[in-house]
């Protein structure tokens, strides 16, 4: 039986672990040169920081995952540095690209563990060099030992905001401020649900306390207004408004932005898995059940690419999906393990719901984005241009959903395929049309899921 696992983050590692344990030899692909995913990304060879320095409170989990990863590589058909740029089912086929060479691989069953990326709301000036996602700010430190600037402002909401801030503080990076767009009372209300996972709650409180104790300016209920600078390739300041309505100008030379993460679901989409809007996560997520099964036979999903759950959930879900695959293939299943995984997954789901309520996507910020803000950074489409495309008196009539708006404005048509602007664009359009985000739809996945080099034809002999 030919089994493929796409992704070698927490979900992919645990999925492959179960498959190998059952005697299979899966094809295992990751776009990065090494596994670990973004959360447990390892620096390239030659870096020497300890796991403690790299992963902090998660060092034990990271070390355990890396040990499993390294032990599994020789027991699978391990393909790092390899992009899966298309997928087909019935018969299953993956299109791969490595070092500019395209190949195809057939499969009977596949577990897609494609992860997530930052969810951002554009702020005027966000295309300036010096502005990155929160995830990027973290990767710069973790994988390269660098801070994104001398005086870094971190803006957004969610666990990653506070984690990155704490990691920068600990590494000795200069922090200008941490601005949380979520009002304090909102988080307080949601705290009622959080004790389902007291360890995670304690970690969050620990980070905030340490930042305050270090004298880092921290604000809640903040609204970012603009990122400014004189020369076009620098950041000099962030203008923002506090919860009381006062405007401030914060001097900084770099800004990290992020409001949670959204699934990388392009391959699930191309495989034909139905995609629905999850109002709690405020994300489009592929349809799957607790076991990782999807309505498409032979396609299983795990990790953040299957709906945001974080690294701990990803490890559980990866193992669970592999067990589902084994069961469907008529192979022996570890029923005790399955029961334990499902119990823990259900408990985590309750915690996750509370977390999403504590750090909701700031749809109001996107809706209030000034017209001149570049919304789609690939194609330089402004919020105003998208709003105009939604107007009923426009040349094409109103765009009732986002793919039609894409055709008229080129929003989401660039090289990132809407990964970066899609969430905010839907909000801008929904606000302009006065309808729910879910009714706006989502930018459909298209192969290749990332830009590919066009191979040069071989010279005639």
């Amino acid at each position, binding site marked *: 039986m030919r089994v493929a696992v796409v992704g070698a983050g927490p979900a992919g590692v645990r999925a492959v672990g179960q498959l190998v344990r059952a005697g299979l030899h899966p094809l295992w692909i990751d*776009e*990065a040169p090494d596994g670990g995913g*973004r959360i447990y990304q390892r*620096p*390239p*060879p*030659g*870096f*020497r*920081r300890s796991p403690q*320095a790299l992963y902090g409170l998660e060092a034990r989990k990271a070390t355990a995952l890396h040990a499993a990863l390294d032990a599994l590589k020789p027991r699978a058909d391990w393909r790092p540095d390899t992009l899966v740029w298309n997928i087909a089912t019935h018969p299953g086929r993956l299109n791969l690209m490595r070092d500019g060479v395209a190949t195809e691989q057939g499969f009977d069953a596949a577990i897609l563990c494609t992860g997530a*990326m*930052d969810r951002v709301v554009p702020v005027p000036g966000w*295309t*300036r*060099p*010096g*502005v*990155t*996602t929160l*995830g*990027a700010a973290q*990767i*710069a*430190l973790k*994988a*390269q*030992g*660098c*801070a*994104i*600037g*001398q005086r870094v402002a971190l803006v957004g909401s969610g666990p990653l905001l506070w984690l990155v801030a704490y990691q920068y503080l600990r*590494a*000795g*990076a*200069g922090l200008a401020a941490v601005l949380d767009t979520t009002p304090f009372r909102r988080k307080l209300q949601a705290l009622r649900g959080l004790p389902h996972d007291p360890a995670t709650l304690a970690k969050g409180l620990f980070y905030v306390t340490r930042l305050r104790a270090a004298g880092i300016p921290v604000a809640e209920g903040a609204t970012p207004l603009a990122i400014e600078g004189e020369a*076009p*390739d*620098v*950041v000099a300041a962030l203008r923002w408004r506090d919860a009381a309505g006062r405007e401030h100008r914060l001097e900084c*030379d*770099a800004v990290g932005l992020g409001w949670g993460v959204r699934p*990388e679901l392009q391959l699930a989409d191309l495989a034909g898995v139905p995609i629905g809007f999850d109002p709690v996560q405020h994300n489009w997520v592929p349809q799957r059940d607790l076991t990782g099964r999807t309505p498409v036979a032979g396609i299983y999903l795990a990790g953040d690419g299957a709906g945001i759950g974080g690294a701990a959930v990803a490890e559980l879900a990866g193992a669970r999906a592999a067990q589902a695959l084994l069961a469907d293939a008529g192979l022996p299943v570890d029923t005790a393990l399955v029961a334990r995984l499902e119990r823990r997954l259900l408990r985590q789901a309750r915690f996750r719901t509370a977390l999403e309520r504590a750090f909701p996507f700031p749809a109001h910020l996107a809706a209030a984005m000034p017209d001149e803000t*570049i919304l789609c*950074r*690939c*194609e*330089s489409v402004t919020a105003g241009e998208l709003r105009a495309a939604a107007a009923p008196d426009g040349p094409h009539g109103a765009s009732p959903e986002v793919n039609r708006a894409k055709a008229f404005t080129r929003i989401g048509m*660039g*090289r*990132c395929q809407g*990964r*970066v602007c899609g969430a905010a664009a839907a909000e801008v359009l929904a606000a302009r049309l006065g309808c729910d985000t879910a009714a706006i739809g989502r930018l459909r996945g298209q192969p290749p899921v*990332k*830009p590919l*080099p066009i191979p040069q034809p071989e010279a005639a002999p």
Partner: protein
Amino acid sequence: MRLVRLTDQDRPEIRFVFEGQEVTARAGDTLLTAILAGDGGFLRTSEFGDGPRAGFCLMGACQDCRVFVEGQGRVRACTTPCAPGLRVRRA
């Protein structure tokens, strides 16, 4: 934009060329780090006239950090390792 080298920087020096100037980087740097931790400032200019860009996601998703490497063509600076002797231009 300038990345700040904070920690884990005792790696061997390597040299490459960016926009015709020889630049010193460290083994293990990505092209993005090698350029932006020096005087590179930015990686490309938006083809729509809205100014310079220097990447955004650092995880190979946003495609905003592409540069031109002789012999390789356009690559993502955030996922391409810097290597001695590379000749790199803004894309």
